[in-house]
């Protein structure tokens, strides 16, 4: 599991696109065979940071689609900088990825 991301300068801000791999179970669905509710399992937070300093933090609810896609623009990083994206889910599992700003 790894987060795929891309970062590109758009004027003086950076456009970041990230694609995560996650089931994003809402906790509302029922198993079609057993009828039992499938427990919620979804990403809760995604942090984008530059040199270890958070520049954008995103809180996600279960209403984000499976394999979440995020796009945002932030100011701060310059071309050539490396930004890191990390995520944590409601079970404490983490994932991360990084990209060099183009």
């Amino acid at each position, binding site marked *: 599991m790894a987060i795929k991301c891309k970062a590109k300068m758009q004027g003086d801000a950076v456009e970041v696109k990230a694609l995560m791999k996650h089931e994003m179970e809402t906790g509302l*669905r*029922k198993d079609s065979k057993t009828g039992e509710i499938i427990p919620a399992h979804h990403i809760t937070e995604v942090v984008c940071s530059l040199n270890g300093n958070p520049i954008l*933090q995103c809180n996600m609810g*279960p209403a984000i*689609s499976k394999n979440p896609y995020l796009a945002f*623009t932030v100011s701060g990083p310059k071309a050539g900088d490396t930004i890191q994206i990390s995520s944590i889910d409601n079970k404490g599992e983490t994932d*991360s990825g990084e990209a060099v700003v183009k």
Partner: protein
Amino acid sequence: MNRREFNKSLVTISGLGAGASLGALPLSVFAAWPQNAFDAETTDAVAEALYGTNGAEASDAITFKAPDIAENGAVVPISLKADIANADSVAIMVANNPSPLTVTFEIMNPGKPDVGTRIKMGKTSQLIALVRAEGKLYTATSSEVKVTIGGCGG
């Protein structure tokens, strides 16, 4: 092992530890997840839980990009742009979802927000955005997104 060697080995171990933690961010950067805001069942309650107020001012500066008809409610691509300077927080809600709040963005270098993601929609609904800039809260409501197959399971 004499004392000097022992100290040396300690340094090596702690050095390794620091090196390993550079790759993955320390868990402390993940702040408390606003559970009550994601559990809230009305958009007013979400605003209250996130920003401590539901007195948001309607703004034309916030624009949505969302499909008129979403064939599959499980994956609805949306994006939002706000021509509001120094915005530091954005929340996107789906009015008719069981829990309206889908996502929030906290921007450490305040600027004009431009964010996008893919969300689940249970049924046809409007999207509501909240944008906070310089302590003031702005809101906007999108046109209706028609959902033909719901995406909240069941």
